[in-house]
């Protein structure tokens, strides 16, 4: 199976323009042989939305989502968008669509709100980390900061995830090192390598490029094979379309060689976590 990392630079708060950008990108990716096209976080809206968040939000039964369903007849797609849900809640969400159907929605569970991030001001927190079966195997999605915390990837692994799709918008920061790219990108690379080799899965990480509000997004999308090997890397900072072959046999071979999942003990981890939390909540004074 061939996947594409669609490292776009979305227009800020212009859903219609971004929808066209998705359609053009899918056409190009399909022409190059892609069956799955992974778009970045908030690919339909841009990232630094502030109070424009509710203005670009869509519901799952909106005409915009219908157009994305239609687009998914050409190739399976992951799309980042603002979901308007019941109760006046807005989620930083990722949709997986294939064959004209919406197969899954992941709502970002870790909302960074420090430094230049202000996500809890605008978004409600997602509370699920689920996998779903597709024609490419079992897929799990994470949005940006979900990937930095170790828990979500672990929970997906405990559900036997085959392909981890990560949608990111990473503001580039740190230009002192001399390594030729933003220092913030190196942690993400390490995590992709780690999760792929620990869980014997593929990691498809799409990280947007372009500039918004003076912030340059890091780009550098990456795909990792199930032994932690980096398969491709997109351009730094600028838009790119990166193609990668995903071989299910490589996962089988990696898991035979290093059967971490077979030997994983989630019940033990759960029991110990419950103990830790019970002890932590006990009053000290």
């Amino acid at each position, binding site marked *: 199976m061939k996947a594409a990392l669609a490292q776009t630079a979305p227009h*800020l708060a212009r859903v219609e323009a971004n929808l066209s950008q998705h359609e053009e990108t899918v056409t190009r990716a399909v022409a190059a042989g892609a069956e799955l096209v992974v778009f970045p976080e908030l690919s339909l809206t841009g990232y*630094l939305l*502030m*109070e424009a968040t509710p203005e670009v939000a869509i519901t799952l039964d909106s005409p915009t989502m219908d157009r994305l369903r239609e687009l998914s007849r050409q190739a399976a797609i992951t799309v980042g968008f603002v979901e308007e849900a019941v109760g006046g809640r807005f989620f930083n969400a990722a949709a997986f669509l294939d064959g004209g159907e919406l197969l899954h929605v992941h709502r970002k569970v870790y909302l960074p709100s420090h430094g230049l991030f202000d996500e809890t001001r605008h978004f409600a927190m997602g509370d699920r980390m689920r996998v779903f079966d597709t024609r490419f195997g079992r897929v799990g999605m994470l949005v940006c900061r979900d990937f930095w915390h170790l828990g979500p990837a672990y929970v997906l692994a405990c559900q036997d995830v085959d392909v981890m799709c990560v949608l990111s918008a990473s503001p580039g920061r740190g230009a002192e090192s001399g390594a*030729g790219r933003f220092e913030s990108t190196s942690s993400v690379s390490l995590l992709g390598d780690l999760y792929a080799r620990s869980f014997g899965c593929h990691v498809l990480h799409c990280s947007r490029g372009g*500039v918004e509000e003076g912030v*340059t997004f890091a780009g550098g999308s990456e795909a990792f094979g199930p032994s932690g090997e980096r398969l491709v890397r997109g351009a730094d900072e600028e838009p790119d379309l990166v193609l990668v072959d995903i071989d299910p046999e490589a996962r089988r071979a990696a898991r035979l060689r290093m059967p971490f999942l077979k030997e994983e003990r989630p019940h033990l981890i759960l029991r110990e976590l419950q103990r830790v939390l019970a002890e932590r909540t006990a009053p000290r004074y």
Partner: protein
Amino acid sequence: MSSPSGPPLDTELAERVLVRFLREEAGRASFRRLVLGLSGGIDSAVAACLAARAVGTENVICIAMPWKDSNPESLVHGRLVADGAGLALDVVDLTAAAEGLLRELPAPTPHRIGNVLARLRMVTLWDRSFAEHALVVGTTNKTELLLGYGTMHGDLASALNPIGYVYKCQLRALARHLDVPQAVIDKPPSADLTPGQTDEDDLGFTYDEADAVLERMVERRESPQAIVAAGHDPVIVESIRRRVVRNQYKRRGPLIAKLSRRTIGWEFRYPRDWQT
């Protein structure tokens, strides 16, 4: 006493990011041209080189704006920078405008004359901005922004500032990388508002000292006590801390009295690149 040095800079990455910033942000606002004041100093030289790479030399308007008391060397260096970067240089002499205005003002002091000149330069740049559909590029660096060493609505005014997050010591490295003429890099920084003035005399400390202290204070969030313990002069550390705090107003827009439900800057908080 530790030898003061500010943070290093990946100059290749900085050039790539800052050029892209100018090109994309100008494009978002539907501008293809940029305009900036060329003082003959290192900051505007770096900004001009970045602007030339971003939109092409033919789309950058550089203006030198001397007046009668300006150091003639400033204009010479401005030409050197423009020639080196392949840019045309316009000269607008502000003497008549400044003298005309100063005649109407009560007993102007050198400091106030400096502010008047800085604001006349702003008026000149914004006029060209409107006339030629070109965005005004800022030339204030991070050290100056943090210390508040600039004139509000004067040299601090701009539409896009590519070097506002680059410390003075990093700018020297970036200037060398961008082939800014050596004479411009080596000369003592001066606002050239009064004859013989240098920034470091004005401030009471060197830019190297300031950058070393500011990096600890701002980037690493160290306390003044920790910075002094690391070997920095307590008087200079306190002077820098006070400047950073006192000049916060220069880094923000005017305060708006809260009365309605959605006040601009609080509840009405939209990105500047909204729907671009």
